[in-house]
């Protein structure tokens, strides 16, 4: 075993009826209840509402952004983010939840000690430390194709609802959505452009009335946890928002949620490019503006 494994919290074996056993897993409809779970990291709490955030392994930039935004806001609102630790949407959701200081559960299709998927090994370690890893497979079990649908039933089973961000019609994310329907869980889907092949899955779920159309975290929150209170982040933001100079305020008004180029801003504002660039940096340093590869946009919490 590597040093990484030695310093990690010990794996626990939990069984149905035990104190930590998630009672949701007793209600999986036609699907078999897992006989036991191997768990590592933070303890599981059946009282905390969970949402599964799933999607394609090959998302678009917008898909990643959406997954991050919704996962972060839900995590901040106290909801646990469940996903499958795959690359793409899954990883984005886990990361966002960790970054927001929330709880995230990664359900694996292999043993706890198997470094899979390779690209997410660091993320797996981070979840081991501040989230929870869950699997029904003993240590040393390598992933095989057949394990993934089985893992998906645990993802759906642990959660009160499944949110599908992006996925083709054949995507495993849709398998999870169907499992969720079998288990009588809610399904949410973020719609996308009809030209985006990765939006076909969620669009189809919405078209066939299997999923509720959601466009932001609050939609999910209100349906999933009506008894909880949505944290009003706008008040907090107003306090943080420092006074802007006249130029900065102008730049701020010209900005949008979609990234804009410096040239566009110069043109729209008729300001010197050096001044626009300088204002944007100042706003970026204060966290009000985000720089993306495509240009500048309001930081996510703005507006």
């Amino acid at each position, binding site marked *: 075993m590597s040093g990484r494994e030695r310093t990690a919290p010990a794996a626990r074996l939990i069984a149905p009826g035990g104190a930590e056993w998630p009672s949701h897993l007793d209600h999986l409809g036609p699907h078999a209840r897992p006989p036991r779970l191997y768990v590592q990291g933070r303890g599981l709490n059946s009282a905390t509402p969970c949402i599964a955030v799933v999607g394609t392994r090959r998302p678009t930039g917008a898909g990643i952004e959406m997954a991050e935004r919704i996962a972060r806001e839900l995590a901040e609102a106290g909801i646990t983010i469940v996903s499958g630790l795959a690359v793409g949407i899954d990883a984005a959701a886990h990361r966002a939840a960790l970054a927001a200081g929330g709880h995230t559960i990664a359900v694996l299709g292999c043993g706890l000690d198997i470094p899979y998927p390779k690209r997410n090994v660091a993320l797996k370690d981070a979840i081991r430390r501040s989230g929870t890893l869950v699997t029904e497979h003993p240590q040393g079990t390598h992933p095989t194709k057949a394990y993934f649908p089985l893992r998906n039933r645990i993802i759906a089973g642990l959660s009160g609802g499944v949110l599908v961000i992006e996925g083709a019609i054949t995507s495993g994310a849709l398998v999870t959505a169907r499992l969720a329907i079998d288990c009588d869980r809610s399904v949410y889907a973020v719609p996308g452009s009809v030209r985006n092949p990765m939006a076909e899955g969620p669009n189809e779920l919405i078209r066939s009335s299997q999923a509720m159309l959601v466009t932001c975290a609050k939609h999910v929150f209100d349906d999933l946890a009506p008894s909880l209170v949505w944290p009003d982040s706008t008040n907090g933001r107003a306090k943080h928002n420092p006074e802007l100079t006249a130029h900065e305020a102008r730049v701020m008004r010209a900005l949008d949620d979609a990234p804009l180029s410096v040239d566009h801003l110069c043109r729209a504002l008729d300001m010197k490019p050096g001044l626009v660039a300088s204002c944007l940096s100042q706003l970026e340093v*204060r966290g009000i503006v985000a720089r993306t590869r495509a240009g500048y946009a309001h930081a996510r919490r703005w507006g």
Partner: protein
Amino acid sequence: MLAKTESIAIIGADAHLVEIEVDVSGGLPGFTIVGLPTKSVREAEQRTRSAIEASGRPWVPQRVVANLAPGGLRKDGTHFDLPLALGLLAGARLIDGKPLEGWVIIGELALNGTLRPVRGALAAAMACRAAGRRGLVCPASNAPEAALVDGIEVVPVTTLDDCIRWLAGELDKGQVAPAGVADEDARAIEDLCEVRGHRGAKRAAEVAAAGGHNLMLVGPPGSGKTMLARRLPGILPPMSLDESLEVTRISSVAGMLTDRPRLVRERPFRSPHQHVSVAGLVGGGTGLPRPGEISLAHNGVLFLDELSLYRRDVLEALRAPLEEGIVRIARSGGVIAYPCRFALVAAMNPCGCGYLGDSMRACRCSEHQLQIYRSKLSGPLLDRIDIHVGMARLGKGELLGAGDGESSADVATRVAAARAAQALRYQPAQLTNASAPKAQLEAGLELTSGARSGLGMAIDALALSGRGLDRALRVARTIADLDGRPQVAEDDVSEALSYRSDHSCLRSAA
């Protein structure tokens, strides 16, 4: 009898004097050249023999040994034909060897005795002056190039016979007019005001020119990256005479001036193709290494379009030359150094499909594809590019409207003023904000208190590394220089921060 003549060996962009001893004696007829000659030097035997016969002098089979000294220096090139032929004739007592003294001789012989132009005439003339020789005897077509160097005589000769008669005092060669200043190149009329829109990128180009910073242009296909890059030499300050001579000398060594000898006054603009080899880019090749594209771009601009399409090893080879301004090519015969102080302008698409951030077409790349596209670039190379700027595709208002903005001449005036401020600050004066050693940069860097606190916030908020901070300070210094301010203000720092590499804002999405 032993005769002596003098010629040169081109090593890198420099010419070194070579003494040629020719011993003609009795014995088995033969012709041996010693002193590390390459094949092209050894082949002089055939050319000189035919040329001597064509000039009407008898070739008597004798034992000939020619020694090119210093013996440890590799000699390459065809310019040894003429000095060898003259040494041979003097050694065989067919001409008087006395008048050869004090002259450096270069020239390639045709079999009929006429002279062909050679590479490196300007470098030869410079070596000639440095060594205090009387003058240079060279093919007539090389003479205007050599005559750019004052303080020496340049003797243009057309045939071997012509040269022999001049040595005998039968001909007066008179004065050679130095090569003219380069006629207006097509490039000179490419003006910055023709670039529509792109105010941000034009500003970035101005800052890059003013501080000697390398520039990265990121934008979708057809957004005008190449157009802007081609106009960068036009906003750099004009070259000094010394800089011109350096550029001309390298062009001369590369054999680029033989058909049109001239003093190169416009800054070079080189844009090697994406399939260029390491040797093609930094110099090398078989025999004695030739200058590469980076040396041909010395004092000018090296433009690498579609940076991600260049081979990675080729880009990696740029790192040391970018840092040092000189490229050293090690060969068994020794190390050859070419100067290569150039401004690097790189351009690339924002992603594989080219439309990331485009307002008219959606990008079809997955996050994974984006990462692969970016990861092809060498991080250390990107680290040496101070200014990164995005270029969006133009809207129809700009495409159809009249050209806008300032002319190259207006911008060049500001750039020249900023460069002058740097020349006063740094020692030696060629240093720029981009290339000055850290100690000198810091000595000339006075930050206002606002700038200092702004930087403090930026380090935390943007997770700025030490290197990132250093780059931002250099660019901020240039922005203040463009404005003519001795102090670096907060606005300068924040503008500089906006030019930092967006590699740092790569989302760590899987």
